[in-house]
């Protein structure tokens, strides 16, 4: 179904959502219009699951105080710097960080998408401190085939996933362009999927390349058309990231007052928005 960002967030992301997954990688393909709507409504979630490398979407939700726990393997801005709101919340202890690695996220999402009870991880991954820091998510069991010890990770089944794609058709099938990162997999694992797109698909656009870059409509709950809605992050094959705008965020978000100013200037100040 085709919804406005306001209606999609209002109807499909309940307050206190247990596990919200947000897609994109680094400063690319963050579904920012959906994220901004969460902030406008002050819609809190219990646990945020990021893609293997999150950026503005996660930092904004954390800075707005809308996240109790974050399950992540990276929140930052690459060459532009560290994530200011994430740093402040994690360093003060206000935010619970559930350490994951890229493998636990991707194989966990495969498990969620395919109905597997858990994900067995490649040997050697137990040597990092990720599993020690997040014991609820990892266990060591005996491999029934070899008798060796093997680390397993919990399946990831987001209640809601917010992702971005280039275009969608009337049936809700969406078409990715450029890299689709873990967004397609995230959507396949989630119960409710909201896809932010740049535009509606042209006739025949999706059926021209259906094998790899499409998410069929039965896996999609709602489509939100938001032209240039990923800014200031990039939207592959549509526009690049707005580096001055990202730098301006990073500068303001260094303090709580500056963060509040960023929300004010970017139309996210007041709660009580109506759908």
């Amino acid at each position, binding site marked *: 179904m085709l919804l406005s960002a306001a209606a999609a967030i209002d109807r499909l992301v309940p307050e206190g959502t247990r596990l919200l997954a947000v897609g994109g990688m*680094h400063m690319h393909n963050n579904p920012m219009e959906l994220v901004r709507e969460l902030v406008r409504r002050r819609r809190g979630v219990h646990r945020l699951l990021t893609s293997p490398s999150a950026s503005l979407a996660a930092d904004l939700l954390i800075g707005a105080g809308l996240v109790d726990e974050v399950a992540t*393997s990276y929140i*930052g801005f690459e060459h532009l710097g560290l994530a200011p709101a994430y740093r402040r919340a994690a360093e003060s202890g206000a935010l619970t960080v559930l350490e994951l*690695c890229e*493998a636990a996220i991707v194989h966990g999402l495969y498990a969620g998408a395919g109905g597997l009870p858990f994900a067995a991880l490649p040997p050697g991954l137990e040597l990092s401190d990720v599993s020690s820091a997040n014991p609820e998510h990892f266990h060591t069991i005996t491999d029934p085939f070899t008798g060796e010890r093997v680390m397993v990770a919990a399946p990831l089944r987001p209640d809601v996933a917010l992702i971005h794609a280039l275009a969608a058709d009337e049936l809700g099938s969406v078409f990715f362009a450029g890299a689709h990162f873990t967004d397609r997999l995230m959507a396949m694992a989630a119960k409710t999927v909201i896809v932010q797109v740049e535009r509606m698909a042209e006739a025949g656009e999706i059926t021209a390349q259906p094998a790899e870059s499409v998410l069929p409509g039965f896996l999609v709950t709602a489509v939100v058309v938001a032209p240039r809605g990923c800014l200031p992050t*990039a939207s592959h094959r549509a526009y690049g990231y707005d580096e001055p705008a990202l730098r301006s965020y990073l500068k303001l978000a260094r303090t709580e007052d500056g963060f509040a100013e960023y929300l004010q200037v970017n139309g996210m100040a007041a709660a009580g928005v109506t759908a």
Partner: protein
Amino acid sequence: MSVTVEYSIGELMAAVMSRQLRPAEVAIMGAVSALPQAACRLAQLTTAPGLWFIAGGSGAVNPHLEPLVASSCDERLLDADAVLSLPDVILVEGRGDLIDVFFAGGLQIDVRGNCNLGPVGPWSHPTLRGPGGVGLPFVVRAKRVVIYSMSHDRRTFVERVDFVSGPGFPAGQLELPGGGPSLIVTPLCTMDFDPATHLARLATLHPGVTLDQVMEATGFAPILPAKLDTTPAPTPEELSILRSLDSAGLLRVGAGR
């Protein structure tokens, strides 16, 4: 008469890293990886023809890199010989036998080659919350790990990291599935690892850098080799290739000579 060509520290490090790569090997790198990407492209055009490299989260295989870009997921990287989906990249990393060289880094790097991109200080209340290690736990499965850092100071080079994102050589009886760290490249020097103790050993000093400078900037005492060489400067050919890739000047950082 030899001609002195000026170069930046970024260019020197890219040249050093490129010389670690061999023909037809497979290399992989993660976030903030313009430097190893430049090293790989340089190697393809000089000493390692047929090298394959996977540019981080973009999934791009052999991105053409004209120009070099700052973000590892930039869509311009998809101008490449092939593109893997990101989940496919994680499969390749897990197999282990496919990856010859993993380029790694950290906010903290220690004497055993452990890298930390997570919490600095206590895990629950870190003094510095780093971004996180993404795929760094996978370094244990690669045949060689080349560690690079644009900072060489006592905050970065520590006796023991506070959190292991990318494991180096483990203490005690534990064994790595892969080959472990092989080289550290910094703005001051290169270090390799002593085969007997698996502890970092100073290998070369960059031109103009003194031993005292390195010891002052390093929070552990590297093993000192019998003979300390000077890192070979980038050749005019290497510099010419690097500059043709790098119209944005991403490598023109750091005072070289």
